[in-house]
């Protein structure tokens, strides 16, 4: 999976976990400022990543990401 595909996939996962329209999300979307940052949604996102990308990201590592781009970087490093 190349970087562009990964970014698209991550945005889809975030959209599902946070019940948002994927079109409203960008790589610069902030988890805390734009999405509210509730832990239960972050748990949903980590689950989505496991389901869709077969990648195991610790909740604390995901929660430390400020933007979707930061999460893409983290997932890319794990793949």
């Amino acid at each position, binding site marked *: 999976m190349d970087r562009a595909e990964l970014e698209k996939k991550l945005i889809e996962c975030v959209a599902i976990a946070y019940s948002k329209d994927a079109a409203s999300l960008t790589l610069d979307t902030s988890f805390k400022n734009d999405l509210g940052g509730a*832990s*239960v949604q972050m*748990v*949903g996102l*980590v689950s989505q990543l*496991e*389901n869709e990308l077969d990648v*195991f990201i610790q909740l604390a590592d995901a929660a430390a990401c400020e933007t979707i781009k930061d999460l893409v970087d983290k997932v890319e490093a794990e793949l």
Partner: protein
Amino acid sequence: MSVLDPIYAVAKENLQKVAFPEATNEKMMQAAYETGKEGYIIPVLVGDTAQNKALAAERGYDESVFTFVDIHDEEYKSKVIAAYVAKPGTMLKEKAMSRRMENPLYFAMAMQAVGEADVTFAGIDNTTGDVLLAGQMIIGLKPGITTVSSIGLADIPGFQGSEGTLLAVGDSAVCTNPNAEQLASIAISACDTVKELLDWEPRCAMVCYSTLGSGQGELIDKVKEALRIANEKRPDLAIDGEFQLDAAIVPAVAAKKVNRESKVAGKANVLIWPDLNVGNVAVKLIQQFGHADAYGPMLQGFNSIVCDCSRGAPVSEIKGNIVMSAVRAARSKK
């Protein structure tokens, strides 16, 4: 008579299957064994069955008290996974679930999610974070609830409240800085918890430094908004505020400060703190100056009962928490 005596009596009449994913731990196995042997629960040891059986024998326990579930039993695991992924709204798919279930904590919760157990009891080897994560991922939150939280029960000598010496307080342990929606969830969950555990009719006060507008500012605004959300979501519950602590629990103060009808003012049996700073300090004050016995914290907000015990807890405390969890599970089914 202990506060827990009536709860122990209810447990005996409604035996629940409690899953123990940390049974290799000596204190946990002892607590599971004694509560099972004394007839309060059906203890289900989830893990490597050969290891659990060997440890039970070594520790001198009658094996027949336990039900053993082996996490290496692929046939049973497949059955649980199939039932789990067939449920609506579950977070993990088959492959991810199978991997997670290599950990007994997730295996136990998966069993609970599909009705093979009523409670998962852990926290002596796993951290609170581990238990909360697994609970949110596998058991999930109740509809309309936005955060996991906790409630504790204080038995305060000399306190003459609406439930005698008892008072339920929360959240003093889990949700650090709840927003208004989360604070509303804490209040709603707390009402459900005391109803399940103690069969109380909950009267829940949202407390802060203001009584009905006597103080102003963003800290008060959050509590007022939380109250509005809680009342909108659960009009069946008596949740009221914003009250100062004395207006919540002292009838004479309530009569002076609360100049409107309230089912809660002056007779609250549940207090909801505005954040964890208040909650932690308040509980320490109750214990230090009020010489209270504290029970819990009990996790709440999950679709079914998950219990996280303190890693330093003695066996007697673990047993009490096991029985309280079982009673909550039994009553939540009614």
